[in-house]
């Protein structure tokens, strides 16, 4: 189930909120847990058993780690979680590569592909579980008081599928007891509606533009179209992802939680280093705290720091998907961060001002080419087209074809919202009537969603 579906907005959400508010406070975690499991099973079916297993085993391990602080137990917990993630997310990819390598040697394997269905959100709940175990081991948190409480935390449906990655420490004070106030509810409605608007009114519109251009044959991909395509995708991925985070944060507030912020206008960054302080902040913080710092961070010399950056971004790329394009995207960012660090260390140079913003945005967009492409071949030919090295000629589709009045307006609005230096849209206060603006956005979204399901059949029978 996705937040941006009619069924979620008009059926699941009202029913859930009604039940939540009718439930006595001490049973609300149970209501949230059951709703979350139904939400998950609706999208993943019987794979909900993986989530249930993760809840039970990590709850048990958390309690043991808080008692014994055992390195062996922690290692077991981390390996188990990563093993499950590795099997479901990466086994197919590595097996395919292994089979291809074997085939190149003239040998053949009977099954060249593994049919493993990826449980939705497994990357998110695995990382949450690992942070829970490590924090219990370090003694920075107390384990959940009950299986229900922990299950409610790990399976919490607003952030289960697309984040933000909520650490137990972020919400531990509100797990057992939390007020649901009118103010919090209003803020939640505001964030949810704005997030939905970002997703439906901006991201989906830009997404259709990007999809059309990325699907063009190489022979028709001109430089201007390639740039339009990547600009559209750059906006799509930001508004889609940050929209989902806004919706999650908003739903969390409706339940009485304060989930951490995940985006802070990342396209305003003046360097790649700053970009990663503003983009998917809960993931970069997770990697910083649970991988970069344990590897030694920047405390073990210059070259070790560079290595650590590469290692972190290699895994960051891999976390996003089991494909070379994601790995290259991660390494590309690792390289840029290393270069920025090198320039800073050696010449005390760092990108600033408008030039820095242009530099950061340009390289982020180049990175998105890898992220969006289906293969490395497509990435490279797309980059060639962007920089005028491709063979594409403008045969059928001009810029004018793609940039219809509505798309143009959406693109301009999206750019303004993404980079304009006004108070960021993720403000947590609604001390003015902007909630009513958000409700207008919500009304527009409901209308737009209907348009998405209008699917008449052409009946001219040729």
């Amino acid at each position, binding site marked *: 189930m996705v937040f941006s579906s009619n069924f979620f907005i008009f059926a699941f959400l009202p029913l859930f909120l009604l039940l939540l508010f009718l439930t006595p406070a001490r049973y609300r975690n149970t209501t949230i847990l059951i709703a979350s499991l139904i939400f998950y099973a609706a999208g993943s079916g019987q794979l909900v058993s993986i989530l249930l297993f993760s809840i039970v085993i990590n709850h048990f391990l958390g309690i043991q780690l808080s008692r014994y602080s055992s390195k062996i137990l922690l290692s077991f917990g981390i390996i188990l979680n990563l093993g499950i993630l590795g099997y479901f997310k990466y086994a197919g990819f590595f097996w395919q590569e292994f089979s291809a390598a074997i085939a190149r040697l003239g040998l053949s394997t009977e099954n060249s592909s593994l049919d493993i269905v990826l449980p939705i959100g497994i990357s998110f709940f695995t990382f949450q579980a690992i942070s829970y175990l490590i924090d219990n081991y370090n003694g920075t948190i107390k384990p959940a008081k009950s299986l229900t409480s922990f299950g409610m935390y790990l399976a919490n449906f607003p952030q289960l599928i697309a984040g933000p990655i909520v650490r137990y420490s972020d919400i531990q004070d509100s797990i057992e007891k939390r007020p649901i106030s009118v103010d919090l509810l209003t803020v939640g409605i505001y964030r949810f509606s704005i997030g939905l608007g970002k997703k439906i009114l901006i991201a989906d519109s830009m997404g259709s533009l990007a999809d059309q251009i990325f699907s063009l044959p190489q022979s028709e991909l001109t430089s201007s179209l390639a740039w339009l395509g990547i600009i559209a995708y750059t906006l799509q991925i930001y508004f889609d992802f940050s929209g989902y985070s806004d919706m999650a944060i908003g739903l969390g507030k409706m339940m009485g939680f304060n989930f951490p912020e995940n985006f802070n206008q990342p396209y305003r960054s003046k360097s790649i280093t700053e970009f990663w302080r503003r983009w998917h902040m809960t993931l970069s913080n997770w990697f910083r705290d649970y991988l970069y710092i344990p590897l030694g961070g920047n405390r073990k010399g210059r070259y070790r720091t560079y290595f650590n950056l590469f290692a972190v971004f290699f895994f960051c790329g891999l976390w996003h998907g089991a494909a070379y394009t994601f790995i290259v995207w991660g390494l590309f960012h690792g390289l840029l961060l290393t270069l920025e660090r090198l320039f800073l260390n050696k010449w005390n140079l760092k990108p600033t001002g408008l030039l820095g913003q242009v530099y950061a945005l340009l390289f982020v967009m180049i990175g998105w080419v890898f992220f969006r492409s289906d293969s490395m071949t497509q990435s490279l030919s797309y980059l060639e087209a962007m920089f005028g090295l491709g063979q594409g000629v403008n*045969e059928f589709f001009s810029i004018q074809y793609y940039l219809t009045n509505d798309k143009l307006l959406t693109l301009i609005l999206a750019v303004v919202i993404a980079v304009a230096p006004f108070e960021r849209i993720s403000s947590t206060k609604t001390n003015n009537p902007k909630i009513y603006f958000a409700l207008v956005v919500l009304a527009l979204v409901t209308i737009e969603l209907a348009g998405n399901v209008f699917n008449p059949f052409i009946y001219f029978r040729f």
Partner: protein
Amino acid sequence: MSKPLNYLAILLFGIIITLPSITTLIAFEFTTPLQENRTKVSFPETLECVKNMNLDVCHRHLNDWFNDNYAPRDLFIKLQTQIDYTLFSSSDKVHIGDDDWLFYRSTLDTQKIVNERVTDDEFTELLTKFDNLSKALSAKNIRLAIIPIPLKDTVYPEHLPSSVPNLPVNSRYKKLQKWLAEHDTIINIDAHEFLSKTKEQQRVFHKTDFHWNDPTGFKFAEALTNKLWQNQEGSLENIWTDTLSIRTADLSGGQASFLPLLVPPSEVGLFVKMNWKPTKGVYDYSPAKPWEYIYDGTNETRAKLGHTVVLSDSFYDAFIRSGFEKHFKSIHRTRTLSSDINTVIANMPLETEIVIIEFIEVYIARLAQNGFGDEPTHTTN
């Protein structure tokens, strides 16, 4: 913000998210239902979902059902279309030309592009196949008529909006038409030229529908009938005697249903007033495959043209409404949607004297890329 305003906001939010479900439960009808030419998704078998524990499958089905059936859906679709139309003059289903001429996006943005992406080799092979077909039929004294028909955007480019794809002037359709004109063994009428001339006298396509209008179909049927007769008799005499009488009526065509505004787009459509005697021939609407119907003109005195097989699309329907078929001894008709050329050739009756293949220009890609269908195992039955 004051508490009352907070409460009001929460109330409004509650109304927005609950109204669709509540009105669905009470089966409230907000507006006249939209025409979508398909069956809407039915409510899932709840017991089956529970029994098999397939919550994901059940949810998918429930989601599809909800998307198709929630009460304010059609009103919201109309509002969304109206907003796009009023503010941006755009729609994601149709191109909106000047004076509200409508053109399917799927045709212009996809099918015509696919047509133009047909490679030179594929196109040459298609021409060779047409040539071979005409020779094979000619050896059996069967005459072949091939009639590709240009679409509304080709005939009325002046009404296209600027946002349509750039299509080459010398399109695959034009190249095929030129090749046909150069081949005397194939009977053909240059439909583009014919329609371009006719449009100086009357509108030839509906503004809100995909098809040419019936008066145009009438005129084209007349021209084709006379051409077949002249070819059969080797004379310049015309066989068609009916005169065209035009009536007008309000029309909101098929393309208008793809632009569901609060007030649907409409036009004054041109239609044919029937002023001829209906045929005495007999129609069999339940023949064996691949035929859609078989017309037997034995009792019809006006039936002077030979036994004919027709592979055609819905543009041919305007011929039928113009009394075209009364001129034939018999007609076996099938559609391009359900049959291919080889199937028609393999199943045509022994007495066949004429084969008519009529198709709209975007069919060229299908012919070029998928061929004429499976090679026939026998030629007649």
